[in-house]
């Protein structure tokens, strides 16, 4: 549960002034959505951990220059993560392999339910391949990063209505592909 807006602003201000425990609080608060977004982009657990760590390091490094007055640092963190991901994927473009799809499941126990989940997730990952890069990123930010349309617009440097349109169109595409898998080829 996130603190109140004023409390969040205070925490961010304290972190800016060098309070390590304040930054620690922000780190614990924001790690999960940032990590999920990075993980979905890279589809590799180890790389996702590395990029997530680097994201927070960069944020900590640039914190004195942080000027955003909003009671959240998530757009800022997602922007850093996104830039790191662009550099990362230039070096190592993710390839959608079957074993990687199976590895996307974060659970460790191979129960029957998780196997079924893996199957569904695999189908969904394959379906997402039909989306354009922008559409896929919009979906990842919306569902895995849990960002609002306005925040996604800031992160991706686009207009909010364009983002809304991308989300709607992407979901329709996904539904069409899931119903007719042959469209993926």
């Amino acid at each position: 549960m996130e603190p109140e807006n004023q409390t969040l602003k205070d925490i961010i201000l304290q972190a800016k002034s060098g309070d390590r425990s304040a930054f620690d609080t922000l780190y614990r608060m924001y790690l999960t959505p940032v990590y999920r977004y990075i993980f979905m982009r890279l589809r590799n657990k180890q790389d996702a951990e590395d990029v997530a760590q680097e994201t927070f390091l960069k944020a900590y490094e640039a914190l004195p220059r942080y000027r955003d007055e909003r009671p959240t640092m998530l757009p800022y963190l997602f922007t850093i993560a996104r830039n790191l991901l662009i550099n990362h994927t230039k070096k190592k473009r993710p390839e959608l392999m079957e074993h990687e799809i199976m590895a996307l499941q974060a659970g460790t126990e191979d129960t029957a339910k998780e196997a079924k989940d893996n199957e569904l997730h695999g189908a969904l990952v394959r379906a997402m391949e039909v989306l354009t890069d922008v559409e896929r990123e919009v979906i990842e930010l919306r569902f895995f990063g849990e960002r609002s349309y306005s925040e996604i617009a800031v992160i991706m440097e686009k207009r909010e209505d364009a983002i809304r349109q991308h989300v709607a169109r992407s979901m329709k595409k996904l539904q069409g592909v899931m119903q007719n898998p042959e469209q993926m080829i």
Partner: protein
Amino acid sequence: MNEIQNNNQFDFLSDEQLLALLDAQGAGKDFVTACREAAIEGLSEDDSLELKALWDIGTELHSWKDTIVPPPPVLDRALLSTPMITNFSASFPAHEQASMNGVETPFSLATPYQLFLREKWKVGAPFAAFFLIVAVTFAMKSPSSRPAPLAIATPPYELSGKEVRTMEAASSLPRVALHDSEMQDTLAFNESHNAETQTAPLDKEMAKSVSFTEDSVNEENNVDEMVLALSVEADADAEFLTQIDEDMTLLALENETMGSMGTTYDEEQM
């Protein structure tokens, strides 16, 4: 390009309605409630199925998201492999500034190793001192480092004939060794001697010889002590007699002096 022709998809649904439906889903609403909130009404059965399929995709995306959790090690595995922040300057408290030089990894990002390094003077020093003391104590008491007992080397004085004989007699017997090498020889001798004792009866002549030698050494030691005691007594007697002679001489001298003085006094009184 993987463009999907979906012009004929969801003609009954505007983008805003679809987004409202997804928002309601994200808020935890059920399908019917979400449709009502999104003002989606009058759908045919096919449209409903199509919309339900899209709803399920949204549900799947949300459930998938929940399975992606950063593993605990990511919090602490941290930044061993990543470079430390070098150009960060912030106003840390003064007591921290001195040890940080303006560069510090936040607590949750730091590894236990880094924390240990930070606290090494507080945590490590007492343990190091303790183990050092224990190690030194142990080293001093270990047999290998213990100094050898003082060896009896060749005496710096001439031995008398009796002493030489006594030492020769004593060295012929099994005894407590003074040198480590002698200790080894003696132990070897004792072991072989014991083995012989267990396997064969001791030679009587040898036993007698050993016994005789021991007796003779003991006798010689006794004689030495007696001679020493007598000589001490004789010396004491001589001193005593000399002292008596001196005392007697002094007494006679005093009497003589007193006698002469007494005569003079008497003569004066008279």
